[in-house]
């Protein structure tokens, strides 16, 4: 649109005048711009390869040197100024444009999140893992054993002979032998009748039969007792057995290991424990381990029945008769063994009032862990 006129006259005054007109026109139009695309088009009209200023510059080439220098530098300055003005305008427009787009993209972040399926581990699994991790850090290995056991592994090898009153400590579910099979009768006669293990202690025997000391093992697992169920008694529950055997293992060592374990398990660095005499046929000496009540800190509460102490586990130094039963050389080894009821720990830890919830399979319970 300017080209026709420009071709007519080639003197510097006219040129400078033209430049002024271009500037004025550009600034006016730019000031009214409200749209990015239109502004881009306008920019090309003024500053593009075939835009007004470019044409001017090309025309300036034909002027005499003096005039060329004068108008040339003026045209270049104008070009820079306009470029800056356009860029500024465009940046402003982009910003407001973004802003409005963003505004339109508003979502209500106070709406509840979409429920994606979330899985849960059973609280007994969680506590078992905690316990295992602590013992692993102290060099213990996790081992397992069968839940259907023989009388030999569950009782006899653990120095609990038949018709011994100690058997009263373990009310047992006995299994019927397979009537059809003569062979199995012979087999089960060797190892005694079949039963559901009443404790995890048979794992001690099975491990020792196949391993030589020194070693440290733990054996978590399900155990079964024949009894009436209520909020604190179950026919199926969970134990964690521990066994450490070496040349010189002592009561003092046991106290160290078990206090360390309990302190870490309950995350209480000053947790106190105490040992008191007790009897389990497979250990001698035998004791119970109590912890200072973690609920009331020994101020007296219903959980510890105002005694300030909670029964945690049975334990003791492995009986030499047990070592003899697995074929170890007499008097060569000493060791400690213990068995913790995991259900009780879980119940204390999460304040669960009824042990039967563990086997309910109820998601309203499971989802809390």
């Amino acid at each position, binding site marked *: 649109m300017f080209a026709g006129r420009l071709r007519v006259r080639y003197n510097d005054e006219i040129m400078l005048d033209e430049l002024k007109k271009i500037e004025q026109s550009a600034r006016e139009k730019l000031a009214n711009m409200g749209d990015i695309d239109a502004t881009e088009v306008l920019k090309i009209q003024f500053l593009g390869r075939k835009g007004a200023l470019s044409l001017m510059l090309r025309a300036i080439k034909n002027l005499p040197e003096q005039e060329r220098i004068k108008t040339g530098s003026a045209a270049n300055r104008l070009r820079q100024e306009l470029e800056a003005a356009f860029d500024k305008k465009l940046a402003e427009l982009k910003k407001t444009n973004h802003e409005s787009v963003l505004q339109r993209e508003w979502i209500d972040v106070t709406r509840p999140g979409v429920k994606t*399926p979330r899985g849960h581990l059973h609280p007994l699994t969680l506590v078992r893992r905690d316990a295992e991790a602590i013992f692993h850090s102290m060099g213990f290995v996790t081992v*397992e054993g069968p839940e259907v056991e023989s009388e030999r592994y569950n009782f006899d090898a653990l120095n609990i002979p038949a018709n011994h009153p100690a058997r009263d400590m373990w009310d047992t579910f006995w299994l019927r032998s*397979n009537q059809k099979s003569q062979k199995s009768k012979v087999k089960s006669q060797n190892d005694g009748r079949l039963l559901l293990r009443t404790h995890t202690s048979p794992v001690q025997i099975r491990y020792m039969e196949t391993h030589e000391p020194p070693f440290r093992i733990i054996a978590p697992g399900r155990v079964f007792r024949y009894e009436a169920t209520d909020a604190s008694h179950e026919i199926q529950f969970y134990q964690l057995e521990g066994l450490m055997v070496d040349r010189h293992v*002592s*009561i003092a060592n046991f106290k160290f290991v078990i206090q360390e374990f309990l302190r870490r398990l309950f995350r209480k660095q000053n947790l106190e424990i105490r040992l008191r005499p007790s009897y389990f046929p497979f250990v001698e*000496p035998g004791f119970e381990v109590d912890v200072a009540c973690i609920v009331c800190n020994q101020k007296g509460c219903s959980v510890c029945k105002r005694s300030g102490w909670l029964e945690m586990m049975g334990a003791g*130094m492995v009986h030499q008769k047990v070592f003899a039963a697995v074929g170890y050389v007499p008097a060569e080894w000493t060791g400690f063994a213990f068995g913790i009821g995991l259900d009780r720990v879980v119940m204390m830890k999460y304040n669960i009032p009824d042990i039967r919830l563990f086997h309910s*399979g109820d998601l309203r319970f499971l989802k809390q862990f």
Partner: protein
Amino acid sequence: MKFSYNWLKELAKFKESPKNLAELLTMHAFEVESVAKAGNDFCLDIAVQKSNRAADCAGHIGVAQEIIAIKNLKVKIQNAKSQIKIKNGDKKLLTVTIENKDDCRRYIGVVMNGVVVKESPQWLRERLETCGMQSINNLVDAANYVMLETGQPLHIFDYDALEGRRIAVRRARKNEFLKTLDNQKLELSPDALVIADAKNPIALAGIKGGFDSGVSKKTKTIVLEAANFDPALIRSASRLFNLKTDASFRFEHNLDPNLAEVASMRLVELVRQVAGGEVIGMTDIYPQKILPQKIFLSRAYAENLIGCELPARRIEDLLKRLGFIVTQKKKDGWIAEVPTIRRDVSSTEDIIEEIARLYGYKHIAMRAPETLLFPAEPNDELLWEDKVRDFFKGAGFSEAYTYIFTGEKEIRDFEDAASGYVELENPTSPETRYLVKHSIFKYARALAENLRHTDEARLFAVTKDFEWRMNKIEERKELIAAFGKKGKSASDIFLELKGVAENLLSALGVSDFWFDDAPNSRFQIQDSRFYHPYRRAEIKIGDDAIGIIGEIHPAIAQTIKLKSRAVFLHIDFGKLWHKAESEHEYRPISKYPAAVRDIALLVPRGEKIEKIQNVIETSGGDLLQDVDLFDYFEEFDKEKEKMSVAFHLRFQSNERTLLEKEVDVLMKKITEAVKEKQWAVRE
């Protein structure tokens, strides 16, 4: 077992309050389970048997001795024997025979006449009551009192009721009966030891007296029995007749036969005091006298086992306080003579326990084990188990624990037969008669329960199945997942769980798994009735079946009142973890772009996607990297039921950018292969 605080105090002359006494005993000897006020007295419930001390501490004297030892009191408890003398009476008054000396180690029978049966004096009644016993009459009460005092059970027969002035300790014969004191009629057998007169059983030895020979108001002459029986025999008979008595409890714990003598003297003394009368005869059969055991104790071993240093004099002192006679042997140990009443002490470790507990466990300082540091070898199976648990948790499943017990009804509900089930001899209820053979039933039930109050449930477990197989009980670890969602079609639920299964197997590093819809293995046989016959597949790794996935059979779903369609996954965990592979190798990402083409087919209904994919993959060659089903629907018209399926085909090379024409050629090959199967390609 109940003890009177006043009685203990009278014997041991301590100063402790009931509470402090309880604490003292608990920390050094046995657990005092409760302390309760009882009139002017306190009743202490002491679990002596929990410390295996029922042989010497099932009476007040035993516990008092223990207190004296713990507190190191200078008190001596007098035995009755030194105060009472029995003149040797007429031997013909009573003949005692013992059939087998293993059954009965000692039998003392004392005949007294001139006794008067009446009510007991108040002090005696009170003592008995504090200890939880009822007063009967002065004679029976006296026997019970001496039992509470010494721990030795005693019995009193009416002498005039004895046929032939005889007492025989023998096994019962078949078809013999006994009417007990509490009027129960027992049918006896040679498994039971009885006290008999010349004709009939008059008491179940060590357990309960007979009705006809018991003390009555008319009783004038009595036989006091203080005996010692084989503990195992008493225990088995007590279980056989389901009779647990104060006497049987004590005898089971292997009493000291020497105690019978002390107790009989004491009973004579007490009977004279409360019922009058004189001893006119006595028989004591004691074939093999029990002498104190001598056990060597090494000081080094004691210190090693306890884990702290103990001065020799301290060890000697502790043992002497407990009534052991200790003599130095060489420099490094002692010979300890164990009082016969301590039937629980038979090894050097038993003696070390005596030292440790009397010394006090709280005085043993903790000490870290001194042992070589050896790294714990990981247990692969359990590591995989926990990996699987984590996987399912991540996939939105919750871990549920269930019982291993099942019953007739549950087995019937799932249309299974009880064969191969492991049966319990003593179930607590019909629901615990068997062990689960298919724990999946438990999870189906748990799922149904949950869907009663929620719209969607995802459960999983690593659990066990039990089964008689090849004359052995097989204990199999199983991985089970259950998924139900209301308002979703069965195929949606199926495919979602199948996706979970595929992810699981990939996550465990299993690559060559596939789903076989025409299975023929143990899973099919065992679980076939559980699954919908046309909506299940066997999961295979190579040729090996490791599990099954399928919708629950609608008939079973109805029985257990499932409120949505539900799909189950069941994998033999043992097989799974053995196939799992933790070592992955990195495969380079191709630098060259992929060419993606689509193909849409119209195929007869029933044609399997797997087969179609196979045809495409085989004809597409190595450059065809992925075949992905993205559209699937079934068209029903009158003539033919057709399925429309469409796939994305991804071609890619690791060496170069594929040319359009190359892909065209491959596509043509694929199209031809498909047409050969009479499947229509939609343009």
